[in-house]
């Protein structure tokens, strides 16, 4: 198991470095001038190239060194947990990320929990009523919400629930998962991936229901609910957990739109800030964190397979 985890991480490490290098290069060559970035546009004239103040600062920040030296320096420091200072606000990137990351993670986890608690049962209900009205209703609903982009559904929900039927305060910022403020963002975060999970759970249940062992269970004369809960739902878990892993990584990484629309100070918004300000030290830090999280999530999903499916414990696979 440890070997497995180590191998996995080894597989990812060069990749993460490569991606970092790409992003670094893109921002370094394609992005704007970091010094000018550091000052908002209101007084850029002081920080034009050639201006002594500009040059003094550039020298002080080590921005005159060659590209690879700067990148190597960055990686070396990152390995020691120092992600450098943000170009835009001069604060340690680590500090911003450690403040933002738990928020994104808690949104992702909470939304995943919602999706699991609501989406899976709905998918199962749909499967059990295949081609009857509950199935059509659930699938139709899922498809409907799937068709609406996050950035449309968010303000619509807001206007609906805060203004038209004023039952909730206008959400802004982030006050924690278990606050009124979080209801709308979490709903929005959950609603589109839930559509996928519902469909996935439904087709997984349908697949399982056509398996021989369900017929065996029925041939044993088990009550139908036992057949469903004991025999049908457990095997469904594997594909659904895979899907949840995908949902989770998407939520971790793809909260960009959500966080922008609701002004949630998470990683997504940091990324946005990084891009808007060409703040590549911030952006790189975020990329690093997101990649790490995605890697870890994938790892967790991989590790969980054998726990969910005992067959895999004795798995035998080709040596590649």
């Amino acid at each position, binding site marked *: *198991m440890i*070997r*497995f*985890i180590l191998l996995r991480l080894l597989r990812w490490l060069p990749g993460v470095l490569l991606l970092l290098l790409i992003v670094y290069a893109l921002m370094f060559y394609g992005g704007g001038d970091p010094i000018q970035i550091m000052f908002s546009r209101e007084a850029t004239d002081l920080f034009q190239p050639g201006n002594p103040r500009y040059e003094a600062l550039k020298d002080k920040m080590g921005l005159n060194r060659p590209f690879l030296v700067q990148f190597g320096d960055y990686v070396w420091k990152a390995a020691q947990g120092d992600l450098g200072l943000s170009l835009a606000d001069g604060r340690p990137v680590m500090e911003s990320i450690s403040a933002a990351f738990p928020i994104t993670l808690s949104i992702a986890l909470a939304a995943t929990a919602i999706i699991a608690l609501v989406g899976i049962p709905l998918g199962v209900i749909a499967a059990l009523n295949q081609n009857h009205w509950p199935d059509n209703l659930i699938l139709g609903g899922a498809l409907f919400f799937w068709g609406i982009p996050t950035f449309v559904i968010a303000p619509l929900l807001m206007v609906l629930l805060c203004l038209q039927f004023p039952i909730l305060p206008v959400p802004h910022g982030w006050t924690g998962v278990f606050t009124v403020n979080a209801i709308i963002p979490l709903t929005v975060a959950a609603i589109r991936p839930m559509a996928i999970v519902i469909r996935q759970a439904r087709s997984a249940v349908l697949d399982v229901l056509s398996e021989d062992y369900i017929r065996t269970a029925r041939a044993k004369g088990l009550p139908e609910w036992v057949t469903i809960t004991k025999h049908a739902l457990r095997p469904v878990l594997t594909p659904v957990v895979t899907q949840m892993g995908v949902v989770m990584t998407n939520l971790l990484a793809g909260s960009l739109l959500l966080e922008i629309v609701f002004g949630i100070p998470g990683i997504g918004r940091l990324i946005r800030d990084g891009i808007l300000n060409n703040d590549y030290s911030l952006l790189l830090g975020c990329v690093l964190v997101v990649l790490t999280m995605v890697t870890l999530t994938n790892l967790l999903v991989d*590790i969980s*397979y*054998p726990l969910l499916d005992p067959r*895999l*414990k*004795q*798995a*035998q*696979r*080709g*040596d590649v």
Partner: protein
Amino acid sequence: MTSTSQPLIRAVNLVKYFPVRLGAYGEKKAIVHAVDNVSFEIQAGETLGLVGESGCGKSTTGFTFLQLHRPTSGKCYFKDIDLTALSENELRPFRRKIQIIFQDPYSTLNPRMTIGAALAEPILAHKLATKETVTERVVTLLKDVGLSEKALNRYPHEFSGGQRQRICIARALACEPEFIVCDEPISALDVSIQAQIINLMQDLQEKYNLTYLFIAHDLSVVKHICNRVGVMYLGRMAEMGTKEQIFAEPKHPYTRALLSAVPVPNPHIEKTRKRQVLAGDVPSAIEPPSGCHFHPRCPIAVDRCKTEAPEWRQMDDGRWVACHKA
């Protein structure tokens, strides 16, 4: 016809191991001993049957001989040419001489190709006919296997299992082979169809002087079609001899057990005869038992069998056996 001293096909100490990883997280490396030191030779025009239970490596032997899997060690001679020494490109001209018929006719034909195209493909690839003459050749092939030329423009899913197996045979014949590996060609078919295919294969053998390596788990079929029979157990050859030798007086305890297990379509015999039922299951090919692989199930095993693998030796009557007590 080649002389008996010069076999068409010769496999010498053929070994095929598959490395695998075991366990939920692939933490353990292991090796599947699929084919372990198997040797045989087949004369031109002869049919060698290869029998054994599933997982004993009989199909792998066939695939490995055809270089569809590259052997771990050992040599495969086709008319004195060592196939194992050839690269994939050098092998290509020989491919047409050595062909294969698979077990499951449903997965053996490309569902997106018409029968005509599927049959024409190898002929054109080996330049055995031009584009103009290829149709004629394909029609002849179809006739050979008892299908009409109407089949030309049809797709595989429009045919029944038996017809598909006919098409597969036609395809194997398309590039005029000398040697065909028949990998359980009838076991996926219904009983009534099996007989048709067996007859067809026999007819074709006569017509084109084909050499067969006939792999099967059904002993009665092997008995019917083969000249010589090899019995495999867990990657190794247990016994090989003429049909009469094997079926009339098996020397290896496994052969005996195998023969005894086959049901006889005669209620009078079947209800009274004493069967020798082997205990236990076939062990895993990943960690095969020490010594003689068969010893844990062998009714006549002695201590020596546990430690020492029996030698593959020729008996006085010409048959080969791997048993200390034979």
